[in-house]
């Protein structure tokens, strides 16, 4: 046994996050931690890593065992370069001075290992969130630890990167490293897990052997079965609500056109770097574009003006919840009410009661696990924070809602609840644009799928298409 935790109990003000949990890690195994959002997985990881001290219980490590942790929330320094982040606090030195050349070389090697091809001198803040995650992984791998803990690393990764990571993990397992792996993607568990410990409400409710069925995992995790993972209810589409026409920004995307009708969910698939996020951000007025136009319900939306886009009836759930979605210093209630703050205010005065009521309703609809609307949002578990970002836009009820990777880090049960709310929006005549790297999700929830590659629209596929067809378009090359 490399590491063994006994009877761990940990409470925060008002919540028992862990309640008498036993957990251990053997050499050469992948031990998966599974549970709903807020079940206590990250808290357990933090106790193992010594970030939190448990109220009760013990954590024992066999002598000389080093532990490396990839936490759920990224810990990179945005302004520093990739190389500097990789060697944070332990830069290679010569005569007491940081040896930049050696650092750059070492960084190249580490990045190669995870298959990330970026210049080590790039500032981390200029990377996409998936690339940042790979940097974080590369850094942890370099510690050569005997126990490696990965808290939802694949939430922000696409298929190829996930495959790469699982290969690396299998490799390490072969070398006798003990791995702890947290994920909400049950297929990944089936591919790599040797054991699965299921947590529910801070308690360990069972340990499943390798090869346990998805059904069994869900049952243990949420205490019920889920009949339909993608409960999309289609209806006849109405008028065109969002029209993007010939959108172009040099070096990012070129001549991108598509439309979404009332009542429709249109998916946008593609590889990382295909320009999906760039396009929706530009359409929403966050970033500039060089040419093309965006219309909502026939009215042109001015360029580079988020306020105008919101007024026109657009909404965007951004992909980076910590950087762009949440005000971490504020409460759950304030975050949920952020978008409706203005439209519900009268004579400059906030509609306090109404805002609270609506926030409470949304928190309940999405089953946000929180001790109350006044709880700081930073104290919520990752998946519950994500629900808050979605919730604030659902409350605003825009004509067209753009969801960029909306279910990242959200558990299987809560995903279904989010999909049901999407259904409700389209039933009410709204339009939804769903950008997602989760192929089963795009295929399962979209009425049509636009596939992007290299900043262009590679093609469109009807509902019920296959992953292979999507991938074939996604890897398409364009003549220069």
């Amino acid at each position, binding site marked *: 046994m490399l590491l063994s935790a006994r009877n761990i109990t940990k409470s925060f*003000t*008002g919540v028992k996050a862990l309640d008498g949990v036993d957990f251990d890690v053997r050499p050469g195994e992948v031990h998966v931690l599974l549970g*709903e959002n*807020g079940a206590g997985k990250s808290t357990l990881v933090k106790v193992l890593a010594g970030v939190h001290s448990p109220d009760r219980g013990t954590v024992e490590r066999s002598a000389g065992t080093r532990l490396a942790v990839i936490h759920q929330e990224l810990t990179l320094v945005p302004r520093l370069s990739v190389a500097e982040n990789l060697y944070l606090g332990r830069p290679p030195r010569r005569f007491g001075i940081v040896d930049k050349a050696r650092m750059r070389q070492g960084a190249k090697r580490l990045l190669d290992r995870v298959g990330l091809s970026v210049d080590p001198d790039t500032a981390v803040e200029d990377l996409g969130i998936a690339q940042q995650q790979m940097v974080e992984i590369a850094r942890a791998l370099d510690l050569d630890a005997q126990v490696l803990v990965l808290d939802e690393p694949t939430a922000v990764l696409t298929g190829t990167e996930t495959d790469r990571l699982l290969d690396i993990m299998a490799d390490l397992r072969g070398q006798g490293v003990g791995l702890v792996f947290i994920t909400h993607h049950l297929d990944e568990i089936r591919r790599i897990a040797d054991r699965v410990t299921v947590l529910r*409400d801070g308690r360990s409710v069972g340990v499943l052997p390798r090869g346990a069925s998805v059904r069994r995992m869900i049952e243990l995790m949420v205490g019920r079965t889920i009949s339909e993972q993608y409960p999309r209810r289609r209806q006849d589409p109405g008028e065109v609500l969002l029209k993007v026409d010939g959108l172009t920004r040099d070096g990012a995307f070129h001549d991108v056109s598509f439309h979404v009708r009332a009542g429709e969910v249109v998916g946008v698939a593609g590889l990382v770097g295909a320009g999906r996020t760039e396009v929706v951000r530009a359409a*929403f007025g*966050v970033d500039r574009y060089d040419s093309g136009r965006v219309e909502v319900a026939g009215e042109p939306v001015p360029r580079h003006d*988020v*306020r105008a*886009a*919101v*007024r026109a009836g657009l909404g*965007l759930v*951004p992909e980076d919840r910590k*950087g*762009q*979605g*949440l*005000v*971490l*210093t*504020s409460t759950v209630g*304030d975050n949920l009410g*952020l*978008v409706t*703050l*203005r439209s519900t*205010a009268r004579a*400059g*005065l*906030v509609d*306090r009661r109404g805002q609270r009521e609506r926030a*409470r309703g949304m*928190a*309940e609809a999405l*089953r*946000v*696990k*929180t*001790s*109350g*609307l*006044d*709880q700081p949002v930073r104290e919520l578990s990752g998946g519950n924070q994500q629900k808050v970002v979605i919730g*604030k836009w659902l409350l605003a009820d825009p004509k067209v809602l753009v969801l960029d990777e909306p279910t990242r880090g959200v558990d299987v049960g809560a995903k279904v609840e989010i999909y049901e709310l999407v259904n409700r929006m389209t039933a009410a005549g709204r339009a939804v644009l769903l950008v997602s790297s989760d192929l089963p999700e795009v295929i399962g929830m979209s009425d049509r799928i636009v596939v992007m590659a290299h900043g262009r629209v590679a093609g469109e596929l009807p509902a019920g298409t296959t992953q292979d067809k999507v991938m074939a378009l996604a890897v398409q090359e364009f003549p220069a």
Partner: protein
Amino acid sequence: MSSTVGSRRVSVREALADNGALAGLLVLVVALSVSAPTFLSTQNLLNVGVQAAVVAVLAFGSTFVIVSGGIDLSVGSVAALSAMVGAWSSAEAGLPGPVALLLGLLTGVVAGLVNGALVSYGRLPAFIATLAMLSVARGLTLVVSQGSPTTTPDVVSFLGSDLTPYLPVPLLVMLVFFGITGFVLSRTYSGRAMYAIGGNEEAARLSGIDTRRQKLVVYALSGLFAAVAGMLLAGRLSSAGPQAAVGYELDAIAAVVIGGASLSGGVGRATGTLVGALVLAVLRNGLNQMQVSPFWQQVVIGAVIALAVLLDTLRRRTR
């Protein structure tokens, strides 16, 4: 089902633990009442209030700025300039007192708007923009006054007087502005927007908040509050001085920070700032009562500021 949306209980103990500054103020008051017998006299307590008033009003304005993630170094200079414009308009230009007062307040608002425009549209760091304003406003004060104090009109002097023996006007003004600050921060769209902008400007912008216009509002409010503080200060002396309120911006920032606000934005409250301003005033008054030399007073006050923030940081970390 695991979802619970209840409410949190807050006990007195938690409230005190949650507000280190309030606990500190109580400790200070108790310590001083024991060691300096005159401290608790009504007259002295009123004095403390009057002394706190100027810094408190400045600090209320700075609370908006700091909550929204900015900083305003110009408030001392802007206070002096506004008071000087008010005094000059009546004494030299012969305008009626109330008009002169309004002109003075307007000066503060304009200075604030310039700060705000430089920060939000000019994209200057707030530190730089307001540092420039600190110098410009002080310079203009000297230009207007020709370097000598100017008599204030009666309305302004009234602001520094006592309504009845037990009711100094500055104390009233402080309480009114305390109320306004709390109201703006908790009830208005602009106030709520300040927290969002200070906590995560990008998230605020992506939620459709007009971050640039709101920053204008923030600095304009700070300028207005500085002008009011300047009037209080001048009113007490019945004279606006060219070197009035030098260094007050630091007291204002200290009050806000002692009150529990975070200089990185998104956190801060009117009550905290009030307590912070009272801590500074009580401390100064107490040190005077105990006849500590002014030189040492500066040392003690600096140490208290560092200690207050240090304790606050430690408290946050252990949660």
